């Protein structure tokens, strides 16, 4: 029944999906936090940039962003991200595109988390003479992060699903393999079930685990 799987690197494709997810998650956590910091910073210009970035990026289809990393950044601006082979370059470009997109959502999640930190905490911090970066780093963000584990988990799961868009620039992840298999093999239903189950295995446990973490981490008020 599963003979047709011969010659296809199913695990390899899902491994690429996992790698795309992990690297993009780390990237968007960093860049998203920076964006959130910009959006609440005392420098008006940075606030403006953060707002503009989030509003633009959230309203473009991810597909457009991903295609643009390849066509615009690589083919036109010559950004190859330090790689030589197309496969590596495309993978890194996809991570970059996914990061650029996902960080807008991370930023918004964090910003709503920042809003849940009680005023008294911040006032107390300022009263003992902490400046803005210190207030953010020592008082606000640690509490904000704890309260947004849930929303961030949702962003992570959405990211896992979004990695399929990397197929648009030929990154050999699960969706690209699925398309290839559908074209060449007859067992459409079986192939679809395999890929559906593959994604269930990636997203459901993540959701359950992080849901549990979210409950543990939440600041009881």
């Amino acid at each position, binding site marked *: 029944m599963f003979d047709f799987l011969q010659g296809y690197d199913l695990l390899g494709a899902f491994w690429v999906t996992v790698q795309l997810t992990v690297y993009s998650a780390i990237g968007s956590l960093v860049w998203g936090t920076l964006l959130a910091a910009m*959006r*609440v910073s*005392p*420098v*008006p*210009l*940075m606030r403006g*940039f953060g707002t503009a970035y989030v509003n*633009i990026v*959230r*309203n*473009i*289809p*991810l*597909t*457009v962003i991903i*295609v*643009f990393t390849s*066509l*615009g950044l690589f083919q*036109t*601006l010559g950004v190859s991200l330090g790689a030589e082979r197309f496969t590596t370059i495309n993978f890194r470009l996809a991570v970059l595109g996914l990061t650029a997109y996902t960080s807008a959502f991370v930023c918004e*999640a964090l910003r709503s988390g920042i*809003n849940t930190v009680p*005023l008294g905490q*911040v*006032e107390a911090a*300022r009263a003992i003479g902490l400046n*803005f970066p210190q*207030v*953010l780093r020592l008082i*606000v963000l640690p509490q904000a992060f704890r309260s947004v584990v*849930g929303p961030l*988990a*949702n*962003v992570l*799961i*959405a990211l896992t*699903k*979004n*990695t*399929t*868009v990397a*197929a*648009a620039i030929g990154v050999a992840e699960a*969706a690209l393999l*699925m*398309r290839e298999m*559908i074209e060449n093999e007859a067992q*459409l239903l079986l192939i*679809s079930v395999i*890929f*559906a189950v593959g*994604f*269930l295995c990636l*997203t*459901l446990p993540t*959701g*359950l685990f992080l*849901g549990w973490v979210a409950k543990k981490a939440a600041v009881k008020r």
Partner: protein
Amino acid sequence: MKDKPTVLYDVPGPRAHRRNLAWSLLFVLVLAAVVWWVVTSLADKNQLEWSKWAPFFTDARVWETYILPALKNTVIAAALAMVIALPLGAFLGILRLSDHRSVRAVAGTVVEFFRAIPVLILMLFANAAYSEFTDISPDTRPLYAVVTGLVLYNASVLAEVVRAGILALPAGQTDAAKAIGMRKGQTMVHVLLPQAVTAMLPALVSQLVVIVKDTALGGAMLGFSELLASVRPMSANYGANTIACFTVVAVIFIVLNFALTTFASRLERRLRRGKKSTGAVVGAEAVEELATPGEHPDTR
């Protein structure tokens, strides 16, 4: 909410003003450097040549022949997906609130399943299934496949939105309905649903943004002639001006979705202020949360 972040720092005095100014300057410099690099590299590669961009400004036919028909397809696919997914989602959402455990379990499984799978996988499957098992013309098959994928996914997201909308209503509404002797079905149809729909409107509009964005997948991967796919015949006519074409298409997407997002947040603000309604709202932000598998108790 708007004034709250300012509490993070003191009102800037003269020194803080200077420091902020310095940061602003530095930021502008970095930004300008990036922009300068992009513009010069583009110019270097002849991508800013007027001939590559001129068609969009001087030739109305480009819009009539390629962009507007493609935009129409994007809108049709998005509208169809929304209109079909909404009643389906409402149905699933109400089932999830059923008093019978088995009904809840079945509806819950369906919702969790389709929320956990990438919409592209659903589209690829639908496209292949239609081509293999049905006699739909190749012209319309991509549209069917895109709409099917979007409906399966969004119905399960909307099921959660509907559920959240009903749960967001004050318990007094159900109590009052019971008090005047309404049955469960009557309470749902005459009291809860109408108010939940109003409460959900912002979330629905912002889900529409997600749908519009996802139609582009059909253009890139299934050969659906939507806005993103219009780049192909366009760039084939004007000497492969792909950068210009993609930029124009991206701007149209941004404008369209930005209008929807703005509309959603206006709607939300108006509903929250509303005196006649219960003030229950499922906000635009809640959608991102509801779109992923797992429990979401705090959607209020």
